[in-house]
């Protein structure tokens, strides 16, 4: 039943499939981000306590959620690479790490400039902020380790181990606001009962979450394809792609 999936284990098939997916992801992410951001920054009502400073939420929450989502997908790819020895899974790890690092940096930075007017401090060493900072270092570690080996088979394995071990940080980030007393507020939308947010504020946030997700997909596809052609550059299909038959 799932046999149709099998040809996609071939790098050239994957390259052409991801090439077909890429424009859809790119266009949809631009549309979602445009709609969500304009709605959030111009049309959403101001918060009754935080005024207009709350609008940072439309960047902060999607970046933070996707920084964790990216880590989860990177860890899954690392697991697949480790267990089934799939080269392409290691390439996915290498492709995702820099994107995750940028999302984490955005989450930390937007958090800091939101924290300054609301908490009176750019930074506090509380559980949520510290565990998110550790996530940034984990991403940087994966990038550094992958770059440090010229043998990419070894590089993928070493970076994969760090990516997997670091996954323990994910539940710590998520539950940090419940396990410890933190300055950071508790979950607003990622909880099981009704979100504690007005729908006029919530919709643009959900649209931007989708937009950041699609942007993550777009960048992952682009970087994965880069990784694919450079690692396979000696293979005939890459030659055929850029030089033509001969």
């Amino acid at each position, binding site marked *: 039943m799932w046999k149709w999936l099998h040809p996609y284990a071939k790098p050239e098939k994957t390259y052409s499939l991801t090439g077909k997916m890429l424009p859809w992801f790119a266009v949809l992410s631009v549309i979602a981000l445009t709609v969500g951001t304009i709605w959030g920054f*111009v*049309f*959403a*009502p*101001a918060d009754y306590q935080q*005024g*207009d*400073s709350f*609008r*940072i939420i439309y*960047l*902060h929450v999607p*970046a933070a959620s996707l920084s964790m989502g990216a880590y989860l997908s990177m860890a899954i790819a690392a697991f697949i690479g480790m267990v089934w020895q799939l080269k392409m899974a290691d390439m996915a790890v290498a492709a995702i790490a*820099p*994107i995750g690092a*940028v999302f984490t*940096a*955005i989450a930390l*930075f*937007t958090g800091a*400039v*939101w924290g*300054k*007017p609301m908490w009176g401090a750019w930074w506090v060493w509380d559980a949520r902020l510290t565990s998110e900072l550790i996530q940034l270092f984990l991403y940087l570690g994966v990038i550094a380790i992958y770059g440090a080996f010229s043998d990419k088979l070894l590089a993928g394995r070493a970076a994969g181990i760090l990516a997997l071990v670091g996954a323990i940080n994910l539940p710590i980030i998520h539950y940090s606001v419940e396990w410890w007393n933190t300055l950071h507020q508790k979950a607003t939308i990622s909880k099981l009962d009704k979100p504690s947010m007005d729908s006029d504020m919530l919709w643009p946030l959900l649209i931007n979450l989708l937009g950041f997700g699609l*942007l993550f997909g777009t*960048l992952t596809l*682009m*970087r994965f*394809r*880069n990784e694919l*052609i*450079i690692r396979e*550059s000696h293979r005939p299909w*890459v*030659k055929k792609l*850029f*030089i033509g038959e*001969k």
Partner: protein
Amino acid sequence: MQFDSFSAFLAMGGYGFYVWLAVAFSVISLGGLTVATILRRRTIITEIKNKYNRIERMRAAEKMENTL
């Protein structure tokens, strides 16, 4: 529309500095990553082309030596 004028929009109810700093950082870092990824693709393709062209030239040179 929540703002009466464009200057009110820029002011963000007095939080303009913080809000626009957050926007600037997000746009610059995501834009930078996207541009870097596109440029990297170009470099890779140029390198691959150079590599195969070099092989082609070496083969051609070898052939010439054999004929001479």
